[in-house]
């Protein structure tokens, strides 16, 4: 990590620690900012680094939300014990789901995989909405956060800050290992990677389940932060969270480590500041935004900046004149 990056990390961490105390009215927005960072980073592991776009990652988020809430409901433990037990179980459950689906559909080539994941989130929502054990259509209500009114947002903004930092550090390291190289090889030329002896499906499934693990934990936390799990609008919210994941990652610059973080910041802040003025047209605007980015801006903000100022990203520019 070079000095600029270290400074940036320390600054973000400090801001993340101070902000919830300084702006105590906005703690849940700050918590959601870190959630967005996790969304974008986890989507990018397969979408950006391995070139496998998934439209169904919200499935893992929903599985996590439900797993955590069910454990909190049935375990009969104190709030925090049950919460952390539930979060762990949520991660594991989501990762298991990813392995099961991944073994089935990740040996398909990219665009088949993308379309196979189109309905996963919706299918999850329908099943949850028809399943009485998890509250069917009326959803689940996780237990109330003990303590004072403002504490919940504060607690969860620190929890998600820690989780986002963990995801960032872990993914950053992972991309530099052989595992990361294998993902990049799959993106660049899967046939060649296979011919070189890489078990490509194994790498893809591993990557997807790592993403799913963290998404599951996030889902469990978000269920508690919102305080109500609706099968369609919170847990398996394909048309909001599901689309945001990929939008933020490609907006920031997919296949990089800072891109998704940047995309999440830009998107979340824009959304919180301006989108209420669109009076329900936000979701239409989202479709327009995806089309525009894909057509004119596929490299994202970071990719564009790298082309614009290559020297600042460590590339040496030869003077050929």
């Amino acid at each position, binding site marked *: 990590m070079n000095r600029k990056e270290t400074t940036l990390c320390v600054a973000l961490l400090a801001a993340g620690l101070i902000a919830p105390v300084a702006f105590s009215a906005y703690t849940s927005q700050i918590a959601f900012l870190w959630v967005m960072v996790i969304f974008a980073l986890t989507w990018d592991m397969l979408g950006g680094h391995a*070139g496998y*776009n998934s*439209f169904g990652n919200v499935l893992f988020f929903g599985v996590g939300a439900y797993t955590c809430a069910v454990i909190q409901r049935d375990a009969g433990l104190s709030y925090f014990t049950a919460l952390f037990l539930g979060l762990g179980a949520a991660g594991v459950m989501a990762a298991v789901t990813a392995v099961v*689906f991944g073994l*089935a*559909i990740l*040996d*398909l*080539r*990219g*665009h*088949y995989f*993308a*379309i*196979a994941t*189109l*309905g*996963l989130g*919706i*299918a*999850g929502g*329908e*099943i949850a*909405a*028809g399943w009485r054990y998890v509250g069917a259509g009326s959803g689940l209500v996780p237990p109330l956060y003990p303590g004072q009114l403002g504490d919940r947002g504060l607690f969860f903004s620190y929890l998600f800050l820690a989780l986002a930092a963990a995801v960032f550090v872990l993914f950053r390291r992972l991309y530099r290992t052989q595992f990361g190289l294998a993902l990049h090889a799959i993106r660049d030329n899967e046939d060649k990677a296979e011919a070189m002896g890489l078990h490509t499906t194994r790498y893809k499934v591993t990557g997807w389940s790592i993403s799913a693990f963290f998404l599951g934990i996030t889902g469990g936390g978000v269920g508690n932060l919102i305080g109500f799990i609706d099968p369609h609008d919170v847990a398996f919210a394909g*048309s909001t969270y599901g*689309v945001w994941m*990929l939008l933020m990652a*490609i907006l920031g610059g997919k296949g990089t480590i800072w891109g998704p973080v940047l995309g999440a910041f830009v998107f979340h802040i824009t959304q919180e500041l301006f989108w209420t003025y669109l009076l*329900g*047209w936000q*979701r*239409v605007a*989202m*479709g*327009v*935004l*995806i*089309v525009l980015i*894909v*057509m004119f801006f*596929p490299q994202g903000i970071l990719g564009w900046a790298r082309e614009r100022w290559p020297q600042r990203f460590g590339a040496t520019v030869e003077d050929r004149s």
Partner: protein
Amino acid sequence: MWSNLQILLQAPAFGVDLAVNGVLVGAVFALVAFGMALVWGVMNVINVAQGELVMLGGYVTWLVSRLGVNPFAGLPVSMAVLFVVGWLMYRIVVFRVVDRDMFISVLATFGLGILLAQLINQVFGSDLRTASPDLGTLLFMNGIVSVGVVKLAAFVLALLVGVLLWLFIKFSRLGQAIRATAQNPRAARILGVETDHVFAFTFALNAALCGAAGSLAVMAYTIHPYIGLPYTVRSFMIVVTAGVGNLPGVVVAGLGLGVAENFAGFLLGAQFQVAFVFLLMVLVLVVRSRLLRHQRKYLE
């Protein structure tokens, strides 16, 4: 679930009812899948906004019927409007992604799909819409097998539109150009085919087909703004099962999917029908890719 299975075993007539109605709705699925196979085969683009075009066609017919006109008059109107929509979609968005990586076209049409679905939701609300012409119901086998006349009409019209399009592609000069472009775009260009026009026309034609399907869907069934994704997934599944260039296969797979879906809806409960469609597609992809693996090929 088991009680429903018992009903089915004790009174096979219910099964006949489900099968007949499944075949009827399957023709609409096959029509949409035909359009998807056309675009896929000619320009190598998987149109993820396919179902949204169906939904749009349904809303056009619904609007026409609200003017007090017979909904059947909405069929040509839907086709014409959607033809224009498809043309615009190609000229504004799709032509930029057509010769690029398939990922990009999947993402771009996915964005278009969201755009259309949310636009309709914003303008007309999320209520269920229908424009039934009230033609009555035919009853067979002591009234257990009931077939709505309008569903029968939709079945016949879907097949008719499909056959007309097939004749057009087979025998007209433009159809010849479309087939030539599908076989080898570069050679077609050398021989004087304006492939860009062919692409635009193919995409518009596909949209018109979807418009017809949507128009039939709103007359015989119901639609709402988010109906698109299941239709996209269904047609994708049908095309993958049959193969891109296999028209009889598309028809058979479409009718089969209709029947399978009706039985699943009856056995599992109607609330799980869409989930069944999505999971069935995962299954179809897995089976198809395993079968191809034995021939040392993969889905291309």
